[in-house]
């Protein structure tokens, strides 16, 4: 089963809220002396400088198939490879597999693996490693096992060929296999020795040199990387949860890159000397969901009334300082799967009509389940409470910690909740689990046979245009019936020194350092 946005928001959010208000505006210390150049820890295998990156929190562990922490994936993106991988436009490109073909009946995928690839410990990468990695996810029912739902067999034909058999046509198999490093190819010996949690061995552009818990992780460039030797000697990751500290360190020349940035400091950071800011609308989305097991929210009109009564623009400003992008469906505008939709404008008269139509009698109390671990849910809850007041609906905000939140979501003890979804690449990831009657994350209890049929058809439709049409129809129906009330896609916000070249902030939040170079150091 899937998780909401990983823990990245947690530490940064809690600590950032208080101290983030502090002004750093007065100083532009771009010219400060860098006393800290010796701080890199790792010396690269080559003479190239080591990139110093500050991420907002510490990985819980380094096994890519077991962790669900975004902090772990920031590091592991540079250590592991997948069979295929998304390019900047999120289209799937060859990685460990050089090419692939699908049988005529669409049920067998044959992958041809890259020759001469080795793991960081020198052992050869072969088809058996692919079989082992995928079997491990399936057999141990790791959290990504659902991505293999249609897979019936993974088989090594020879050292460099792997066959994957599926029970039904699976057009999104490539994005399932390569969408993120949770599907990485791992090494059997590394897993069985248990070392993978602290000393992972991959095939990626950097290998792990050392890990000091609480402090830092050092990667060193892999000179034998199949994609060519990286442009920096290594990467020194530190964990700086306090955004203002990370920004100070960046402006002071102590680090070269960070994504530990409070949204409210974005504007002044954009004007700072020697600093480049990269933003990109992300694939994550934030939504509201009304519990359809609780009357009157089983009525479409009642749910629509709420959708017409909320002030999206205010919520957006309050939670993201205007950095997020308003969206009334899940998939962001720059995706090829985007569908235009802007039905819900703020319209209290319409909301009142709909409530009357649903036969709702006011005053009415609505229980809003928020969590302090994601402060945006608390902020938005306060705005929504004042939005719904004129309708005679009193919003009772309950703020709990995230573990309790999950528990209460699953047991249905809420009328309304807000949460984010760590978006993936294929539209199936955005809609199936949440809105199919049998969906694993359908806590609101939405069920519409027509939508079920569309989502089922989307899973097996191999013609891209036809697929697009199916999902557009499903998505607009879901929004029309307010199964989710979609709010916005947050932005990916990262900042780096102008010495760092060829780096791109990606909408899937993958942090890739293999092609970057560092000038002037």
């Amino acid at each position, binding site marked *: 089963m899937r998780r909401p946005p990983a823990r990245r928001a947690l530490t940064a959010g809690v600590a950032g809220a208080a101290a983030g208000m502090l002004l750093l505006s007065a100083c532009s210390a771009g010219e400060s002396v860098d006393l800290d150049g010796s701080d890199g820890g790792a010396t690269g295998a080559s003479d190239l400088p080591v990139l110093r990156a500050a991420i907002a929190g510490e990985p819980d562990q380094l096994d890519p198939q077991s962790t669900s922490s975004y902090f772990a994936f920031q590091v592991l993106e540079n250590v592991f490879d997948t069979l295929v991988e998304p390019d900047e436009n999120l289209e799937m490109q060859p990685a460990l597999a050089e090419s692939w073909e699908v049988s005529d009946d669409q049920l067998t995928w044959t992958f041809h693996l890259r020759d001469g690839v080795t793991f960081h410990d020198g052992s050869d990468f072969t088809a058996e490693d692919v079989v082992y990695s995928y079997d491990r996810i399936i057999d141990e029912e790791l959290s990504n096992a659902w991505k293999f739902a249609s897979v019936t067999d993974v088989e090594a034909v020879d050292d460099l060929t792997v066959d994957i058999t599926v029970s039904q046509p699976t057009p999104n198999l490539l994005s399932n296999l390569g969408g993120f490093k949770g599907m990485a190819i791992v090494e059997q010996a590394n897993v069985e020795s248990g070392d993978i*949690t602290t000393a992972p061995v991959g095939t990626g552009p950097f290998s792990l040199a050392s890990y000091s818990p609480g402090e830092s992780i050092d990667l060193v460039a892999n000179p034998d990387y199949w994609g060519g030797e990286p442009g920096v000697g290594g990467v020194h990751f530190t964990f700086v949860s*306090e955004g203002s500290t990370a920004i100070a360190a960046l402006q002071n020349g102590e680090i070269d890159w960070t994504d530990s940035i409070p949204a409210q400091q974005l504007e002044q950071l954009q004007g700072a000397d020697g600093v480049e800011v990269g933003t990109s609308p992300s694939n994550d989305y934030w939504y509201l969901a009304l519990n359809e097991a609780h009357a009157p929210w089983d009525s479409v009109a009642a749910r629509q009334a709420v959708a017409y009564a909320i002030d999206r623009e205010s919520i957006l400003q309050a939670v993201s300082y205007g950095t997020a992008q308003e969206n009334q469906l899940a998939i962001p505008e720059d995706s090829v799967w985007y569908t235009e939709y802007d039905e819900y404008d703020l319209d209290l008269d319409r909301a009142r009509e709909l409530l009357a139509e649903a036969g709702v009698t006011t005053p009415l109390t609505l229980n809003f389940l928020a969590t302090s671990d994601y402060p945006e849910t608390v902020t938005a809850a306060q705005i929504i409470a004042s939005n719904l007041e004129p309708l005679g609906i009193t919003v009772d905000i309950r703020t709990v910690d995230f573990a309790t939140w999950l528990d209460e979501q699953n047991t249905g003890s809420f009328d309304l909740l807000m949460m984010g979804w760590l978006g993936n690449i294929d539209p199936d990831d955005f809609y199936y689990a949440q809105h199919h009657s049998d969906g694993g994350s359908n806590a609101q209890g939405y069920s519409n046979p027509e939508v079920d049929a569309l989502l089922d058809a989307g899973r097996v439709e191999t013609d891209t245009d036809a697929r697009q049409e199916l999902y557009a129809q499903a998505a607009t129906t879901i929004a029309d019936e307010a199964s989710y009330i979609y709010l916005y896609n947050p932005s990916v916000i990262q900042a780096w020194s102008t010495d760092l070249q060829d780096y791109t902030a990606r909408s899937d939040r993958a942090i890739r350092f293999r092609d970057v170079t560092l000038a002037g150091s």
Partner: protein
Amino acid sequence: MTGSGALRFLARRVLHSAVVLLGVMVVVFALVHLVPGDPVRIALGTRYTEESYQALRAASGLDRPLLEQFVSYVGHALTGDLGVSFRSGEPVTTTLLQRLPATVSLAVVGLLIALAISLPAGIWSGLHEGRVSDAVVRVTSQAGVSVPDFWLGQMLILVVAMTLGLLPTSGYVALSQDPAGWARHVLLPGLTVGLVAAAIMTRYIRTAVLEVAHAGHVRTARSKGLSPRVVTGRHVVRNAMIPILTITGIQLATILGGVIVVEVVFAWPGLGRLVFDAVAARDYALVQGAVLLIAVLFLVVNLVVDVLYSVVDPRIRLS
């Protein structure tokens, strides 16, 4: 104090500490089991299924009777086995020991800075009650007590690290790896902790000195015509050492227990931040272990302070 007397004193104090420690273990153990919400259920989160629930419950021993669980927990803890972290799968003891050097570094540097400021300031202020210098010290320390440590930390980063460019903004370097790097990195967080502690300690020390200065024996000493230097050194300061030791011990133990906000601001890998992260992640084994370690640190500091009492004032015995 005779040699055997000192040993007996020490033995009784250690026994005393052991009893307190057992109490701490009972409380920590009970808390984990009494807190609303099932830790196993919470650990599984969205991955919850009946089978995985039963499996994890059995694996973590939570299906056994409470008393049995407690006995086994204490037994393991005594051998240094504090269990395994839910999240990382690493032994809790290993994780805690990795964090200890950073915590001790920060505590020692912070306390030294605090003592360097508060001892002279507090004694001077106490001996010059009502003078302008006393007022200056009182106002300054009152201001110091009122300043939040995260604000002070941010200001130090702003001024010392960014504007003056004298020290790094954040991070940690092990003393064993690079002593100079360690010193440069520990100074700003140490200063933050030290300044806040100094403000508190100055006020205590001033009060302690004042109390002694007004005591009967000091008046007697003065009236005997002893020089002010002798009165101050032998009678006032010496007798004020007991409350000074007490507040120093409390401050040291507090800093060792984790100065969470300072550690977060300076990205300092100490115990405070570890506990903060572990609580947020519901990593109960780690929380339990960390609380136990902090309790042990408190007890050790208290023990040392008690022993020092009898050094400073031979009349003091364990009552």
